[in-house]
């Protein structure tokens, strides 16, 4: 359904080129959740913008159900945008404080000319509010009258009201109180089951990603370095960076404390991409070849794809 093919998105910073996304290919099927993980600067937000048609790739294509936003304008572009919606991290910043919830929910319907009149649109807003577990009295209230968890439910309602095929979830529960996160995660799963919508789930909480995703793409400096099913990625990671990420994640069990930090240094700047393998400066398994040759994403025996010259030589993975 969503097909991203060899996408490159570059930004100009002064006279230098920032290669935010540098050759990424991904697909998301209807009803599927693809997780995107990686440190800040790895290009995951830029990839989301490309999927939304908000930035144009300098190379490669993005298409949803065969439609590519790059060649579209006017009403055709509008129709494309109806198919891809987004839920933001901070639900307060993404709802207009001056509009009632009803006004915020009606806007996508009016823009996309869904429903034959206002009565029908209001009925649709009432139905969607019910689907996200809020009562009808919410329609006439303003965002400040709701808690963070309720506001995120409204953000989800607005994203799905125009029946998109793909929803991009950018850290949808990171800003919520811990006691309401599970509710919102369960709600997203219910919506996906009921509507067969595809999710691109951007996140950094690996335990959560393991629970909510079907497949995972691990990104580093603008590239996907490992791509596979959630089980393949977490049970038998084949890229040293994926392993470092999993080992860095804190474990909610005080009897299993990690004694060493898994990865030294900060993520390098995408303005200054190293030669050879992008990860070599921080990699514990690098060899001579990694300094000069950029590894391609290739099929591993475990089932997933990974880009590492030395994946055959990595020690066997044990989760603890």
């Amino acid at each position: 359904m969503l097909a991203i093919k060899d996408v490159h998105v570059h930004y100009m910073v002064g006279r230098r080129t920032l290669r935010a996304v540098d050759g990424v290919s991904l697909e998301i099927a209807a009803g599927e959740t693809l997780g995107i993980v990686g440190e800040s600067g790895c290009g995951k937000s830029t990839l989301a913008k490309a999927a939304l048609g908000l930035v144009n790739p300098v190379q490669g294509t993005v298409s949803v159900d065969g439609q590519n936003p790059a060649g579209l304008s006017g009403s055709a572009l509008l129709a494309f945008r109806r198919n891809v919606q987004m839920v933001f991290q901070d639900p307060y910043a993404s709802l207009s404080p001056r509009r009632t919830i009803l006004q915020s929910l009606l806007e996508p319907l009016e823009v996309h000319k869904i429903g034959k009149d206002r009565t029908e649109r209001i009925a649709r807003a009432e139905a969607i509010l019910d689907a996200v577990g809020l009562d009808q009295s919410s329609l006439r209230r303003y965002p400040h009258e709701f808690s963070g968890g309720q506001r995120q439910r409204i953000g989800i309602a607005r994203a799905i009201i125009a029946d998109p095929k793909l929803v991009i979830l950018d850290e949808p529960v990171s800003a919520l109180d811990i006691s309401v996160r599970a509710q919102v995660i369960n709600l997203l799963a219910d919506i996906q089951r009921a509507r067969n919508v595809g999710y691109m789930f951007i996140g950094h909480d690996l335990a959560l990603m393991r629970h909510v995703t079907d497949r995972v793409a691990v990104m580093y400096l603008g590239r996907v370095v490992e791509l596979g099913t959630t089980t393949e990625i977490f049970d038998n990671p084949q890229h040293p960076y994926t392993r470092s990420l999993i080992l860095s994640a804190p474990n909610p069990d005080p009897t299993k404390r990690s004694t060493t930090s898994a990865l030294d240094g900060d993520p390098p700047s995408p303005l200054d991409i190293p030669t050879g393998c992008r990860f070599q400066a921080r990699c514990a398994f690098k060899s001579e070849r990694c300094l000069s040759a950029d590894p391609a994403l290739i099929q591993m025996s475990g089932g997933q794809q990974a880009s590492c010259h030395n994946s055959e030589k990595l020690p066997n993975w044990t989760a603890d």
Partner: protein
Amino acid sequence: MPAVLEIENLRIGWIDSTGEHVIVDGVNMSIQAGEILGIVGESGSGKTLSMLAVLGLLPAPLTVLSGSIHISGSPVTPATAAGMRGKRAAMVFQDPMTSLNPVFTVGAQIAEAVMLHQGLKGRASMDAAVDALRKVQVPDPERRAKQYPHELSGGMRQRVMIAMALACKSEVLLADEPTTALDVTVQAQILQLLRQLQRENGMAIAFITHDLAVVAELCDRVVVMYGGKVFESTDVETLFAKPGHPYTQALLESLPDRAVPGEPLISIPGQPPTSGQRGTGCPFKARCRVATTACDAPLPLIQLGTSEKSQLVACHRVSEVAVC
């Protein structure tokens, strides 16, 4: 030997013509030298206000209504707080960019604190700053000291804040979600650094967080707060193995790590209360699966376990939940 930080029956709120409005209600906690205490709570639980009270930095009209705070035996009062802040107790905030001045080099900012609190002058204060940066494992500290905050990464800036506390020889470090804004890889480095400082310098650390996994990785003891009250206070192993309060139990059950693959997460209904919605008795009762009418009464404090591994739980129904 007195605890480095001792908070007894702390109540925070404001007073107007209608009387007292209590936001933080009866907080007790203590931290020994070389100990890391985790303070877990959601927004509005009172965890940050309790720490701001230690520094005498409560935003008006909030004030300490009653109770006491001591740092190594010396009372913290409105008159003494300013003299102790930065020197005996230092704080590290979530976003170091808002704590650092963008127009001075980080070395100069650490040196300024050293001059103020340690009485060192000129060159000696800058040497102390570079030395502190080295201790928090900033690579090439001489060069980094001459850089401005915007030239450093988020993790490096957070190390600078910790270096400032170290250079001033603060007895207690109050860390308010210092790793929430960082990447998970950099978070792991900062947690390791804090553990090392605790071991080598005997620093007492209060680590405020909402992330239970970070608590499990880092802390020795834990205080769980909700709706302005301390719900549970125990050592970290007991908290994760045998949580005493229904709120703590529900939080642990809702973690994705404990979920059955393919099944929904075990969620807690409702929302955390705002300070105006708490009502009487237990602030969690509306969301609690074992609440009864008894929960309208003021919270008891019940001790479970032995005296060495004591577990204090503020719940009327603790006998119901202790069995599961």
